[in-house]
């Protein structure tokens, strides 16, 4: 029962080649959190019903709770730990922090990665496109609004525009 023999795979996690051994029934979520110590990826149901465990698999946002670790051999995985580079936050992380798009912070890694994938495919999304792209991620704290604003602001900055948060967003009307 407790001595199921481990399997070993090679994959790239946040740009680094990684070899890891784990029990073969484990999901990517469990491998990341328990075998690689990357606890930035969270979970809210383990059944694909909340989006909290979102990671990028070969650049595509997926639910790590429903991906087998074994199915990731030879693939690339990006987690929230890979977003900040050289001690500097990713533009999305910056705007999420500045606007309060992260309250409890539990769903935040998932939203950041889903948003990053959106902006990679669509650098100038409309509010509706942002809502559609993030419709698979639940957040109970923010009501999503600060998240939309953070994605819009980061998108503008990533396009090279000099953008600042609106007064209404920070101070109300």
């Amino acid at each position, binding site marked *: 029962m407790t001595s199921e023999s481990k399997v070993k795979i090679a994959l790239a996690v946040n740009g680094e080649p990684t070899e890891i051994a784990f029990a073969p029934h484990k999901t990517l979520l469990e491998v990341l959190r328990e075998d690689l110590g990357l606890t930035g990826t969270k979970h809210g149901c383990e059944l694909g019903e909340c989006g909290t465990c979102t990671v990028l698999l070969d650049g595509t946002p997926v639910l790590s709770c429903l991906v087998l670790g074994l199915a990731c051999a030879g693939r690339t995985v990006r987690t929230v730990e890979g977003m900040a580079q050289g001690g500097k936050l990713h533009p999305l992380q910056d705007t999420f922090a500045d606007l309060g798009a992260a309250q409890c912070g539990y769903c935040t*890694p998932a939203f950041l990665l889903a948003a990053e994938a959106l902006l990679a495919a669509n650098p100038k999304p409309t509010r509706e496109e942002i809502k559609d792209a993030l419709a698979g991620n639940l957040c109970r704290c923010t009501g999503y609004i600060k998240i939309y604003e953070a994605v819009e602001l980061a998108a503008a900055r990533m396009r090279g525009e000099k953008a600042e948060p609106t007064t209404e967003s920070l101070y109300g009307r």
Partner: protein
Amino acid sequence: MADKRRVIGKALRKVDAAAKVTGATKFADDLAFPRMLFCKLLRSTQPHARIVSIDTSAAAKLDGVQAVLVGQDLPIPFGILPVSQDEHALCIDKARFIGDPVAAVAALTEEAATAATDLIRVDYEPLKSIASAEEAVEHPEPRIHDYGDRGNFHKLIDLEFGDANAGIAEGDMVREDLFFFEGSTHLPMEQHAAVAMWSPDQKLTLWTSTQTPHYVHRALAKVLELPAARIRVIATPNGGGFGGKSDPFNHEIAVAKLAMITGRPVKITLTREEVFYCHRGRHPTLMWVRTGVKKDGAITGMHFRSLLDGGAYGSYGVASTYYTGALQTVTYHIPCYHFQGARAFTNKAPCGPKRGHGTPQPRFALEVHIDKIAEQLGIDPAELRLKTLVPANSLTANYLRVGSMGLGKCIAKVVEGSGWKQKFRKLPRGRGVGLACSSYISGAGLPIYWNNMPHSGVQLKCDRGGGVTVFCGSTEIGQGSDSILAYIVAEVLGIDPFDIAVVTGDTDLTPVDLGSYSSRVTLMSGNAALQAAERARQILAVHAAKKLEIPVDRLSFAERRVYDAKDPKRGMSFAEAVQSAEAAEGTIGTVGSYTPPMSAGKYRGAGVGPSPAYSYSACVAAVDVDPETGIVRVPTIWIAHDVGRSINSAAVIGQVEGSIYMGLGEALMEEMAYRGNRNVVHKIPSLLEYKSPTTLEMCDVITYLVEDPDPNGPFGAKEVGQGPLLPVMPAVANAVYDAVGVRIDEVPITPEKVLKALRKKQKGEPGRHGPESFPDIPWPEPMRVPTPWEGGDGKAVSPGRPAITAERPH
């Protein structure tokens, strides 16, 4: 001292924001220790049953299993309220709902622990189960608990302030309505988790996702019979709380005991289904209200009844029940008021405090009731409310002391912003607007267990390098309480909030703060931090002034400097100021604490409702109703919130938007549903079937901050975390009526209900969906309290029924 504010009111980044956006924040389930075991609870599959026997022998023998616990191993009861110590870590002789924990296993892996729970055999003798409050009223037997006011009533309350019947009779019009508010749950994205560690020197450490480490600390000491000094509870940052992590829980006690038995760290992470069983969410509440009003809308008297479905345990239920009657009086002037409240035990997951604790239900009833009164009187509902507002700095009929009161300004803001006057009763069929208001406490006036110590304490340590550390027992649940401490201290000491280290929620390191509930933290820990910071400033100022050879009152603290306000170049760095003070006095540390003002009410039950300050909100909801399907969509909500003073305006807006979100879910879709005919099983304990709004349901929110500083709040601040949720449900209900002319006197406002009401209306019947009757309840003799304007002194003149005997199980 009147420096221009540099921190307070600014939309600064929160002190924990970088950790949150990088995934660095360690939530309870992120913790792992060498040799850590995994715990799994076996939960009852019966809603109400005697436990005849439990056989754990096969489980104990399973490979990897290290320990198995049953109820007898933890015989001492606990519970959040001293009057409801009715829970056991594991059921001893009786299971009271499907999901009630009956055994616990610790094993090398979670898989092994799960397999072991499968092997535990429990022999149940089923008892008749009670599926609703109405059933509990009908069936005093079998009793779910052997304590409580009567039969399956946990609590019966009857309070009368002035002669309400006479008051109501003075109205030109008397209106009676019935409402029902369905139960809902917090649904934090983080499932509860806890890790316990036992050290050979007989010390227990528990990391847990709790909003109330102090109460967990007390419960552990009691149940485990350990000196509190040997227990350390560390509240990990909560991945959402909303009230759902405010009780001490079975699983926290179970892992602690398992760690003590095995000598190894033990972790538990609940599944989503188990989070539904922890619940402590909104009580399903049936309400009846009768109000007398003058032609101009002035209320002459009100009688309000509530019947709460409490679920299987007490939790905060006694307080919740009082709260369904307490805050009606703080918005519109009610000269005399009669409240009767009952809480029933049922065989369902226990209800407790969810955002708004006991007040969203009566607020829904009151605000829809007022909308109906306004229509009947032919007065615009915004005007009617403005005419009847409770004045600032006044005492209500039930002795609540209202301080600052910005509701009038709030109403004006949303009426203007939403274009109310151009829309109300003027939009085409299918589109509508509705208005509702609310108020909420900024912390409760009394602690949960009786004591006369402060509700919040702060210690502050100044480092000679210029850094400051703030220690406080408050708990960060995403609302920003850690940041509030840093902002307030930074403002007073003139340093950058990010120069401040914040240590919170750790019973070994931090002075007690009662916890993150009742919207108490900004006001109470904020005041404690303010006091500690001002004391530190005084110490530093004395020595800085001496060194600069100027009077103390000429000093300014800003931009990491302490300087002469008249000659800003003359000064020193903040670090130098600390160094001179330290050289003169030794290590620089101060403390601050906060105790709320005494309540004005002295009657039994007066403890629920008083608060140092009340927040106010006004809300206009726009709805689109599809008359063919009954489907309601909410495109926009305008909300104005009187927060007294924003400590961080962006964080305040975040709380407002989050409250609207949660209110919208309750208004339209969220429901704790049970199958009464199928063993009272929870119908949908999953994130898929419990409907939490997605990005596609969330409305636009237009937020107006009204700042009416309250003298009791730090820098004038009042609460914002809960109040803005309250008006959403009634505003949506009132808007549905404006759109299609039917009254849905029940939340959630589902398409089925709207369509039923529309069909009834087509047939010429009243276009309404809602409860039809309120059951007969054996109310006790009312406790009569003369109102302040009758010359009352806050005491009861008739004692009501005798005080509750302190009947306790075991």
